[in-house]
């Protein structure tokens, strides 16, 4: 006897079992954000210890050299030398305790660790405060200039409607309405840029106005305004300031060796002491400085290689002596660079990225509170991701955008206007070989499948299929008659034959058109920063975790708040394969990380040793000179 099992269609629950209100979602995300801030502080501390251990000796070296030089001119009191000797002894005790577990008096230990860690820490804190002040002064203007943002056009109905929607959302949030600026970019995206809610600006891409309906526009703008209200602007600035501090530290340490680092430092100083923070040039300067600094915290071609270029023609005795004398500093320099890169890429960067992602989720939940309509935001996110959000010039402000602005700027959905899309679709259907079935109705969604079909036909034509070639010929003819300007976007059938025979020029033409017709991004959980970046991705390259959450995760959370998006269920087979692969590779990865940490530790300690020996040597020289 079979029990009556109701069919799944009748028993579908009215709402997902883990339904949560947006208030609860906000509370959850706020708590998560606090936790992640603590993680960030911890990461900064963890990153700070090896940094302090490497920078402090350099600072002491500089101090000692300065003291010695001053001593030559006017002798310093002996008390000074006694105190510094005592401090050095404390430092050695602390080191001994750390490495060889030699017992030590706690008070001596505290003083010793202070001696070892304080100077580097104080310098980093000082630099961080300085960079964040400087940046706050000119960062906003600079970003707007780099994006080429413009005022809204008073005669355009859509742009007026945009201003209305912004006002409505600001009223819903109880905030002063931010100023709206427009960008004419191929992608559709929106960002909130500013240093405080009073002076915030909303940068909206013109394509977004064309693509989204009113509800979706409301959802996207509500997200930006909600993030302004939640105080994300200050956090965004701090994120950039952190990476800038790493960049400045690197430039400082590199400056004896690299002219580029010296130039960067000079630019920063000049900007810091410039007369007024206002003005276009100052803003451009701030943006350039921010760009350079956030890019420079990566491990790329050094000034050091340049410095030690032994294959250079002018190899003189003086250079060799200089190289020999400065070797410990070079070593320390390399140790600092390596630990800076590793910790910022693998520890601090991901913590900051995860924190920023949680703020994005919080802004999503707040947007639902403002519009009371999760569907609008879900639809907007889907449409924006399909269309592509490429905004050239985003630079360091990339994390402020709704979706990642560093996609492939050349996707076909971006390059064709809606009218052109219609013409192309009509021509494509007209060129199809006559079949018995009726012509399907063309909607905007079908354009994507038509693109896929077209790409397949091109591939077939390239390999010699006569039918495909004939179709392309017909397509080109109909396009030329409908819209001659579009004809250049279709490949010439003769090129296919020529390229097959080996004609290089034809091959180049076909490659260009193939890139032109690249399929738009799919809604996968692939992090956006892995896409082909046509421009330097600035801040997204500073951590292996991207700053923007994936579309799927955001839609899942919006579903819990009431949206009804069809999400493809996780492919369980792929999950099993992925888990197995990661289990296999995990030990190797851990081993590699452990070895890297060991290497960093060894380098730090040997740099300490080198510096100590070197300093003692030079100090003795000075003492010798002073006594005669």
């Amino acid at each position, binding site marked *: 006897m079979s029990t009556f099992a109701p069919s799944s269609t009748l028993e579908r629950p009215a709402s997902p079992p883990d339904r949560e209100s947006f208030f609860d979602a906000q509370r959850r995300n706020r708590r998560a954000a606090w936790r992640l801030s603590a993680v960030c502080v911890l990461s900064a501390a963890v990153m700070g210890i090896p940094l302090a251990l490497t920078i402090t000796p350099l600072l002491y070296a500089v101090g000692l050299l300065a003291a010695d030089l001053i001593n030559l001119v006017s002798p310093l009191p002996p008390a000074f030398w006694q105190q510094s000797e005592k401090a050095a002894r404390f430092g050695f005790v602390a080191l001994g305790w750390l490495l060889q577990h030699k017992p030590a008096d706690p008070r001596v230990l505290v003083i010793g660790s202070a001696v070892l860690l304080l100077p580097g820490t104080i310098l980093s804190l000082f630099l961080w405060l300085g960079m964040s002040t400087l940046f706050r002064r000119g960062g906003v203007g600079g970003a707007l200039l780099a994006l080429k943002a413009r005022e809204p056009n008073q005669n355009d*109905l859509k742009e007026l409607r945009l201003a209305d929607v912004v006002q409505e959302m600001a009223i*819903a949030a109880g905030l002063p309405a931010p100023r709206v600026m427009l960008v004419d970019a191929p992608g559709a995206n929106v960002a909130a840029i500013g240093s405080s809610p009073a002076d915030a600006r909303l940068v909206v891409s013109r394509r977004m106005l064309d693509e989204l309906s009113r509800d979706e526009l409301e959802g996207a703008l509500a997200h930006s305004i909600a993030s302004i209200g939640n105080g994300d602007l200050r956090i965004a600035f701090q994120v950039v300031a952190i990476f800038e501090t790493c960049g400045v530290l690197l430039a400082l340490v590199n400056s004896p060796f690299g002219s580029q680092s010296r130039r960067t430092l000079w630019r920063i100083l000049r900007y810091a002491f410039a007369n007024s923070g206002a003005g276009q040039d100052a803003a451009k300067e701030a943006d350039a400085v921010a760009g350079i600094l956030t890019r420079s915290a990566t491990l790329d071609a050094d000034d050091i290689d340049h410095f030690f270029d032994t294959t250079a023609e002018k190899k003189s005795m003086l250079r060799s002596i200089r190289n020999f004398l400065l070797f410990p500093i070079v070593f320390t320099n390399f140790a600092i660079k390596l630990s800076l890169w590793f910790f910022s890429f693998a520890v601090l960067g991901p913590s900051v990225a995860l924190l920023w992602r949680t703020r994005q989720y919080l802004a999503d939940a707040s947007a639902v509170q403002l519009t009371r309509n999760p569907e609008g935001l879900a639809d907007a996110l889907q449409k924006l991701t399909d269309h592509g959000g490429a905004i050239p010039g985003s630079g360091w402000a990339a994390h402020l955008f709704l979706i990642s602005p560093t996609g492939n700027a050349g996707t076909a959905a971006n390059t064709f206007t809606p009218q052109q899309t219609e013409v192309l679709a009509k021509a494509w259907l007209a060129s199809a070989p006559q079949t018995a079935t009726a012509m399907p109705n063309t909607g905007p969604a079908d354009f994507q499948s038509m693109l896929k079909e077209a790409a397949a036909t091109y591939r077939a034509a390239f390999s010699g299929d006569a039918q495909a070639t004939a179709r392309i010929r017909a397509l080109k003819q109909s396009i030329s008659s409908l819209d001659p300007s579009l004809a250049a976007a279709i490949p010439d059938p003769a090129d296919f034959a020529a390229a097959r025979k080996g004609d290089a020029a034809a091959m180049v033409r076909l490659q260009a058109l193939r890139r032109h017709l690249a399929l738009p991004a799919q809604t996968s959980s692939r992090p956006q920063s892995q896409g082909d970046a046509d421009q330097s991705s600035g801040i997204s390259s500073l951590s292996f975790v991207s700053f923007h959450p994936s579309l799927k995760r955001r839609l899942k959370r919006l579903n819990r708040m009431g949206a009804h998006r069809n999400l493809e269920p996780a492919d369980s087979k792929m999950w099993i394969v992925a888990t197995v692969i990661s289990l296999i590779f995990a030990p190797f990865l851990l081993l590699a990380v452990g070895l890297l940490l060991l290497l960093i530790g060894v380098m730090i300690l040997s740099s300490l040793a080198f510096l100590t020996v070197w300093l003692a040597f030079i100090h003795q020289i000075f003492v010798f000179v002073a006594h005669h």
Partner: protein
Amino acid sequence: MQISPELIGIAAVVAVLLWLVAAFNKLVVQRTRVKNAWAEIDVQLKRRHDLIPNLVEAARGYMQHERSTLEAVTQARTQALAAGNNLQARIGAESLLTAALGKFFAVAENYPQLRAVESVQLLQEQLTSTENRIAYARQFYNDEVMNYNAAQSTFPRNLFAGLFGFSPSTMFAAADADRANVQVKV
């Protein structure tokens, strides 16, 4: 320094006093936000009042056969202005104005040449936006009222809230507007 019981007692009293001050200030801030939110609704309602005469003038030339609809809109507006500070009458009059405007736009659908007139298009967009703004202002007001009511009625604040004159505010419920039966005098 010896830690005597008196010292602990004094410290505890000081701590409680400090908490009392902080809680009182928070309630004051929230009540002010509620008042602010109500004022915002007022601003948007006034904006609607100011936009209507222009719309009626612009549409009058094209909608000669719809005099009753236009008159209803103008009358509702006059009544809303006359309602003044009487809360019940105000809510009722404003909702009637919303209904009259809705009817006007429904009738305007039958006049396609009206849609082509640019001034009417702009005014329609502005009125739609104003309706949205009123709705969002009400939503924000309700959210603030919710926060304030929750703050002044949860333990331990409810102990002294009544003492200092913090009473719960009323939300702007749509049902009240429908219940109030104010007649439009034609």
